[in-house]
């Protein structure tokens, strides 16, 4: 654990990609195989099923810190991270360099953290509170992090894969592939990984290839003929893995969602064995795509009733073919992959499995004209893919572009603020914005991004000096600051007080030139919703 804590500190205190890879690589070279596997597991952001929630931890903190509850909450509000607040507040006898026996990362998980799940609350409390008192600050913080969620230490899965590739001297794509899907952290996983046997269980998906946003127009891309244009569908990106008589549907979040979409699984069974398709899961009815909000209702259900299946039918539109006849096809040019994909889909003769259609337009100008219709077609814009491109890993600029439509915008008033996470954990960076309904402000959107670091610091200072009330770590502020917010779509929602839900809201700019009275109104947003619904019925 000490060694892993040192790795965490190295990663936490540098912004250099090179230094991060170096630190991870150095750790992987010396760590015990099972420790290295567990470290990989947590570094790529995997989390265990939580055995104790934040409410209990806060209760135990109150009992152990011997401080009034408001003072703990105020300290938590200032620090913004529960794991760290506990490590700083619980009286601790050991100094930072205490000579306590080091317990390996593997033992921490296998012998301490995982068994919590089967213990009574009293037993869990006893163990966890003991750790708080015994562990030095750094390790206490880390254990709390492992108990409460992910590490958020600023490394992505592909960065971890680069470090692993470096110290194992293996291709990074191979490593990336082995890290996705389900695997058990342990010595066996590590051995297989380092012997290039990977973790290729039968349903193993491939890493998704992602497009980069196209700023400006497609002019610089060259000839129109070199590019495939497709609609940018607004659904769940997914992969169908059809091998050894089984079908598995993976989401881009690497979750198996096969049982959420039984009709897709049934249709995929008609595919020839040994193939993998990349595509989009969509809610689909009457020959057109339904808004994402409808699909979301289906994901949200714990149980799929016949009624839900009937009301919100799902479809899989395939973009790409990654494997066929048991062979990895990702190096083939897109032109070949698409042709083969089309043949494959024709043979299934299914209305549920389809090919994402090519958007036919002879010139970039003609394509731009079609893009302008995107919103009424219920799509987010266009995808442009080089016909010569292979299917890469992650986001590599150049071969695939997303050419999205301009977002909707509105002006909202800052109402509430809460501290952020990780790098921003003691700054107020999670904001709630409202719009006018008569003479009251109704919350309509939460946004976390879009401001510069300097603006964030300035707004943080403003929030601290213009707080009206504190609710735990959330503060309500004087309704004065106006922000321009962008969003991708709007849906009606019974769960929100405002009756609407905005998709991907984010801050465009701080409107220091505006006062709260000039912000938008809820009726104006509802009008956007009404127009959008009318549009989608007229195409």
């Amino acid at each position, binding site marked *: 654990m000490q060694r892993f804590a040192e790795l965490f500190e190295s990663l936490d*205190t*540098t912004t250099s990609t090179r230094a991060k890879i170096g630190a991870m690589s150095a750790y992987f070279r010396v760590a015990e195989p099972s420790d290295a596997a567990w470290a990989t597991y947590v570094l790529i952001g995997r989390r265990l099923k939580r055995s104790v929630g934040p409410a209990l931890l806060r209760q135990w903190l109150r009992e152990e810190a011997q401080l009034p509850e408001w*003072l703990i909450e105020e300290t938590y509000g200032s620090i913004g*991270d529960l794991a760290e*607040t506990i490590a700083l507040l619980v009286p601790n006898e050991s*100094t930072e360099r205490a000579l306590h026996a080091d317990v390996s990362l593997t033992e921490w998980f296998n012998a301490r953290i995982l068994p919590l799940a089967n213990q009574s609350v009293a037993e869990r409390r006893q163990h966890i509170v003991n750790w708080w008192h015994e562990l030095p600050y750094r390790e206490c913080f880390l254990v709390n992090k492992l108990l409460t969620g992910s590490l958020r230490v600023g490394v992505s899965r592909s960065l971890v894969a680069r470090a692993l590739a470096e110290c194992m001297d293996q291709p990074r794509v191979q490593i990336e592939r082995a890290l996705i899907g389900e695997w058990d952290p342990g010595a066996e996983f590590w051995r297989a990984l380092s012997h290039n046997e990977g973790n290729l269980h039968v349903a193993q998906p491939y890493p998704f290839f992602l497009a980069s946003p196209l700023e400006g127009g497609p002019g610089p891309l060259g000839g129109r003929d070199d590019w495939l244009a497709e609609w940018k569908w607004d659904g769940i990106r997914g992969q169908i893995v059809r091998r050894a008589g089984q079908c598995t549907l993976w989401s881009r979040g690497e979750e198996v969602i096969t049982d959420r979409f039984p009709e897709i699984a049934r249709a995929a069974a008609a595919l020839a064995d040994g193939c993998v398709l990349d595509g989009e899961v969509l809610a689909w009815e009457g020959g057109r795509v339904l808004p994402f909000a409808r699909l979301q209702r289906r994901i949200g259900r714990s149980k799929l009733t016949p009624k839900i299946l009937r009301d919100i039918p799902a479809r899989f539109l395939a973009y790409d073919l990654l494997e066929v006849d048991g062979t990895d096809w990702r190096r083939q040019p897109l032109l070949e992959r698409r042709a083969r994909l089309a043949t494959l889909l024709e043979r299934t003769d299914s209305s549920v499995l389809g090919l994402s259609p090519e958007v036919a337009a002879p010139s970039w100008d003609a394509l731009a004209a079609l893009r302008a219709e995107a919103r009424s077609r219920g799509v987010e814009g266009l995808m442009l893919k080089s016909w010569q491109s292979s299917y890469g890993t992650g986001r590599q600029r150049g071969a695939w572009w997303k050419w999205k439509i301009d977002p909707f915008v509105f002006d909202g008033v800052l109402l509430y603020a809460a501290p952020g996470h990780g*790098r921003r954990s*003691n*700054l107020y960076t999670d904001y709630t914005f409202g719009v006018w309904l008569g003479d009251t402000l109704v919350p309509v959107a939460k946004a976390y991004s879009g401001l510069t*670091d300097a603006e964030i610091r300035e707004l943080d200072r403003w929030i601290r000096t213009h707080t009206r009330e504190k609710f735990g770590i959330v503060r309500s502020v004087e309704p004065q600051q106006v922000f321009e917010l962008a969003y991708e779509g709007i849906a009606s929602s019974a769960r929100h007080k405002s009756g609407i839900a905005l998709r991907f809201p984010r801050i465009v700019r701080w409107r220091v030139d505006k006062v709260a009275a000039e912000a938008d109104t809820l009726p104006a947003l509802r009008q956007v919703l009404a127009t959008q619904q009318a549009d989608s019925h007229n195409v």
Partner: protein
Amino acid sequence: MSSADLITATSRGLYCAAGGFYIDPWQPVEHAVITHAHGDHLRAGSAGYITALPGVGLAAQRLPAGAPLVPLAYGEAIDLGKTRVTLHPAGHILGSSQVRIEHGGEVWVVSGDYKRDRDPTCEPFEIVPCDVFISEATFALPAYRWPPPGMVAVEILEWWRANAKRGEASVLFAYALGKAQRILAELAALTDETVFVHGAVAAITDVYRGRGIVMLPDAAASSSDSSQYSGALILAPPGAAGSPWMKRFGEHRTGFCSGWMRVRGDRRRGGYDRGFVLSDHADWPALLRTFRESGARRILLTHGHTDTLCRYLREQGTDAAALHTEYGSGE
């Protein structure tokens, strides 16, 4: 606040009407009693200054030439108006004082900035029994608890050594007045190597040496040849971070010494490679311990987390209130 209060917060600073003087005023006044030479406590333009003898050199360096400075030895009494005033060590930096004011059988103490941890560059904080204690509250949250300074010095040395092993320079940012000299003195117990310093640090370090403080030898970081600095430690004020002056060091790592480095968000946001928790202010336990030991029946708080500490003290049955001042929370 009652009109009978010996010291009140005014628009110019903390004012003692019975004595006709201000303590650490932020606007020019007739008579200023100065707790220490940091910029937010010592400002130019007043007609007369009284400060502790060990701090006179620092104050003189920071005020315009010829500023009227009256030195007062720790414990030596001076009568100002109807009051009797003495200065007592505050343990913050060289020459830092608490101001004790006696009038009509009542004793008030103004702490200025202070700490309770040992510091080889200045006299330790002295407990001055009083009726009313006016305290700073810079780090008045229970999360702020300092590790032993000797341990932090070892961490700095280990970081320096690890960087040196890679042939890199170690640039450590610290307040030029007080913190930088404290680091040089702490490290003197562990090594005898020469440390490069920024010009702002050098001038002040000379004043400290003049007072007989034992520190590592320092040399000006004036060469622009980066090979000079490979494996070396450089002390610089935080303002030098990101400036063109840094270019001379070639491959280097940066660190920052401050109480604020206790919190991860502040460590990360600062953009330094390392944060060392070394503060010249009292941490949460030290604040509470000092109030207890002073025997004060009333606590007034000047700057920092004043509202939080105030509420906590009141709940514990202590009479406490906040005073509005313009002292900073930088460190």
